[in-house]
C-alpha cells in the first residue's frame, strides 16, 4: 500500500523556471491538499481539492496552480519560480473533513 506518493524528492530550479510537483494517492480519498513547510515552521495550506474537478485556494496560493482531473492525482504547478518558494512541499489526502490527513514524504525545492 503506497499511500501518498510525491515526485520528485528533490529539485533545484533557477528563478523564472517552471515545474510541476506530482502527487498521487491510492487510497481512493476524495480530499487532497498541498502544503508548504518552511524551516522550523508548521505547515501552511496552498491549495486543496474536495474531489475530481474541484479545487480551492488555501492560505498561501499566490504563485501556484493546481488541477484535479482524477481522484488519484493532484499536481502542483509553479509557473515562475521565485526564491520565496524555496521550501518543502507536502501533499496529503483524506476521506473527508474531520478525518486524518495522510502525508507524502515531501518534495524539497530550492530556487536559486
Amino acid at each position, binding site marked *: 500500500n503506497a499511500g501518498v506518493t510525491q515526485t520528485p524528492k528533490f529539485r533545484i530550479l533557477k528563478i523564472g523556471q517552471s515545474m510541476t510537483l506530482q502527487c498521487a494517492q491510492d487510497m481512493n480519498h476524495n480530499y487532497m491538499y498541498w502544503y508548504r513547510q518552511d524551516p*522550523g515552521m*508548521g505547515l501552511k495550506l496552498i491549495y486543496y481539492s474536495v474531489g475530481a474537478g474541484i479545487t480551492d485556494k488555501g492560505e498561501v496560493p499566490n504563485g501556484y496552480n493546481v488541477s484535479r482531473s482524477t481522484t488519484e492525482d493532484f499536481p502542483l504547478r509553479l509557473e515562475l519560480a521565485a526564491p520565496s518558494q524555496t521550501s518543502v512541499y507536502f501533499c496529503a489526502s483524506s476521506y473527508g473533513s474531520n478525518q486524518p*490527513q495522510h502525508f507524502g514524504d515531501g518534495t524539497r525545492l530550492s530556487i536559486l
Partner: protein
Amino acid sequence: GENVGLHLPTLSVQEGDNSIINCAYSNSASDYFIWYKQESGKGPQFIIDIRSNMDKRQGQRVTVLLNKTVKHLSLQIAATQPGDSAVYFCAEPLEGSQGNLIFGKGTKLSVKP
C-alpha cells in the same frame, strides 16, 4: 480567529520516562483534533485524533487528553523511546473550511539514552 500553538518548542526526556506535549487552541467550537509526528526528512505521520465529545483517547503508548474548559490538548507518550524523537504537531480544522487543518509550529522531542 483560530490559534493552534504549543507551549514549549523543545522537550528533552530520558529514555523510559513519560513525555507530555501540550497544545492550546482558541476556537471553542473546534470539534476535532489531531496529533502528528514528523521525523527528520519525512512527512507528518498521523498518531492519534480525538473528537470534542471525548476527554481522553488512548492508542499504543500514546494518550490524548482534551480539556475543553481551558481549550487545552495534550499528548502523553509512555515509556519514551529513542524512536519517539521527532517534532510533534497538533492540528485542528479551520472554522468554516472543508477539512482544512491549522497546524501549530511543533514541539521537538529529544530522547536521551
